[in-house]
């Protein structure tokens, strides 16, 4: 097998950087908007915000097409946006409207768009890991070069499905990328408490697959590592565990008092360690994006989000008949 050229963040084009920045902004502004609307009491149910972790979803999905699949978590808005889900449809879904991506039946924790390869946010921690194996298996059986990416949390890494899924991906050499979003917490419990290991990527050794830990607030690091892992997967070289160290800017869910958070760490995350700020700086110093372009994108995204909110608010709730439709394809 001939040595493959390694991907490098240096190869990022201005076009790609612009896409990346827009997606990061979309996630951030989407989440900030949901946060505010939730506080006003206009959004029902449980909502888990992705703000702060944008570099992970976007840095990974930058390497994927609609034919590639991702599985997600309860904290799924970021994955949806990065994978190309319609933002109006997402917002309407969170509002429980008939125009939502799932007709309002799923809500925040179950946004999905299979046509975009987004196999659903998931309310069950650890559930996405085996699901990613299935998408990888489809690629293998159908002999495509599609890959499946599994986003999961540090908390989920302690669930049995992590072990079962990684082992299966390894023995079958499936085109699967396990992306751990290690934000240091599973709800209120710390990763340090709940996991014996220091690094989730450490497990890779025992499974004889590639494991790597990167700074998950640094877009270029995620982008580069994910690029290499996705390329390996497409070449049939099997799975990778990619651990991204990150932080969630909001609480575990909306309404969380966050007593377990360290103020200093939170401050740093919201300021100098902010993923978007860091990518702005990177893109500017590497002449990928200019200040003007950034402002344009910021404004464009603001308009998108405003539109989404309006769209959602003006959309009707589902019709009564919808309670019992879509249970089966046929029954």
């Amino acid at each position: 097998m001939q040595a493959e050229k390694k991907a490098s963040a240096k190869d990022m084009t201005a076009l790609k950087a612009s896409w990346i920045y827009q997606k990061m902004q979309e996630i951030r502004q989407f989440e900030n908007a949901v946060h505010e609307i939730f506080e006003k009491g206009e959004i029902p149910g449980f909502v888990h915000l992705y703000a702060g972790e944008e570099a992970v979803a976007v840095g990974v999905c930058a390497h994927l097409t609609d034919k590639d699949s991702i599985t997600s978590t309860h904290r799924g808005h970021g994955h949806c946006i990065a994978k190309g889900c319609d933002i109006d449809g997402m917002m309407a879904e969170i509002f429980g409207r008939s125009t939502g991506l799932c007709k309002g039946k799923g809500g925040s924790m179950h946004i999905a768009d299979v046509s975009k390869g987004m196999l659903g946010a998931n309310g069950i921690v650890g559930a996405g890991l085996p699901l990613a194996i299935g998408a990888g298996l489809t690629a293998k059986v159908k002999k495509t070069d599609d890959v499946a990416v599994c986003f999961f949390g540090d908390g989920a890494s302690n669930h049995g499905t992590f072990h079962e899924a990684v082992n299966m991906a390894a023995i079958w050499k499936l085109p699967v990328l396990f992306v751990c979003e290690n934000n240091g917490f599973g709800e209120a419990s710390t990763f340090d408490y709940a996991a014996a290991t220091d690094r989730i990527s450490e497990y890779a050794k025992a499974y004889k697959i590639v494991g790597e830990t990167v700074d998950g607030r640094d877009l270029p690091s995620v982008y580069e590592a994910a690029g290499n892992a996705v390329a390996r997967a497409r070449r049939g070289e099997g799975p990778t565990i990619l651990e991204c160290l990150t932080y969630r800017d909001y609480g575990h869910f909306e309404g969380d008092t966050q007593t377990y958070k360290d103020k200093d760490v939170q401050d740093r995350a919201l300021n100098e360690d902010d993923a978007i700020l860091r990518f702005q700086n990177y893109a500017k110093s590497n002449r990928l994006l200019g200040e003007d372009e950034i402002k344009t994108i910021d404004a464009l995204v603001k308009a998108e989000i405003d539109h989404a909110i309006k769209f959602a608010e003006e959309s009707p709730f589902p019709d009564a008949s919808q309670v019992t439709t879509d249970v089966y394809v046929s029954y």
Partner: protein
Amino acid sequence: MTIKMSYSDAINDAIRLAMRKDENVILIGEDVAGGAEVDHLQDQGAWGGVFGVTKGIVEEFGRGRVIDTPIAEAGYMGAAVSAAATGLRPISELMFNDFIGSCLDEVMNQAAKFHYMFGGKAKVPLTIRTIDGAGFNAAAQHSQSLYALFTHIPGLKVVVPSNPSDMKGLLLNAVFDDDPVIVFEDKTLYGMKGEVEEGFYTIPFGKAEIKRAGSDLTIVGIGKQVLTALKAADQLAKKGFETEVIDPRTLSPLDEETIINSVKKTGRLIIVDEAYPRCSAATDIAAIVGDKAFDYLDAPIKRVTAPHSPVPFSPPLEKLYMPSPEKIINAFSLMVGDKVFTTA
């Protein structure tokens, strides 16, 4: 002496009383202490569960007996089973009953069967606390009411408290019972206030409570649906029908006698259950009563349940999904003939 207390506080109170009474009682589950091992965080700041129900318990009893677990339901539930078999009385929290998919084996094949498979020589005094119920727009994976699955399984006891006072007495009974028990906490009831006896008391399993007496109709409500039944009973009373409302309190064991005696008197039964309709607690009670009180029935037994669908997220859909006083009254009108209501 009684004091006014919420459903949530009644749980907290019961757990503390149990832990004070017997040092073998431990509390284990995800974030039941809450905020484990963060240096700057004192125990008093800890979450105490996702709804704060167990808040403060770690302060009183320490991390040795209030144990936060990794997100590993099979792991900690299995641990709780054998901790029970080896001398402790664990209270194990399964955060949402919807998560039973990760640890059904530990409950169904281990906890429920040890006593029988081992010829009566092992016992498993385990209490599982878990959250059920729709009404919070928590969508299909966080709103189920899965007590039927557990009622199906021999070896388990199934408790569905509908108010703070019952919750406290039934939970304390569960902890000191020598069999595995699962207690359902309806998430929409946590804020419900009620008069609760102070100090330690237990309510035995298998004893239904007649919440309201009547002679024209019996309604059995499961868990929170007792409240829906009471509302319907109020409305029916205005139309001149006296309803007997029964809260079975435990589904396994089930107090068949109280229900059957009531039906013998009223001749009519409606079961109100927000769970899925097939192979459910509603069909269970209907089948038993339909068999044993056959000669006394003046009308078919009606079940007012969720439809055969997952729980929808969208608030108006979820509302339609749930049992309601109107649906109960509709069912009754079918039993007695519509015109009663059109003339009312």
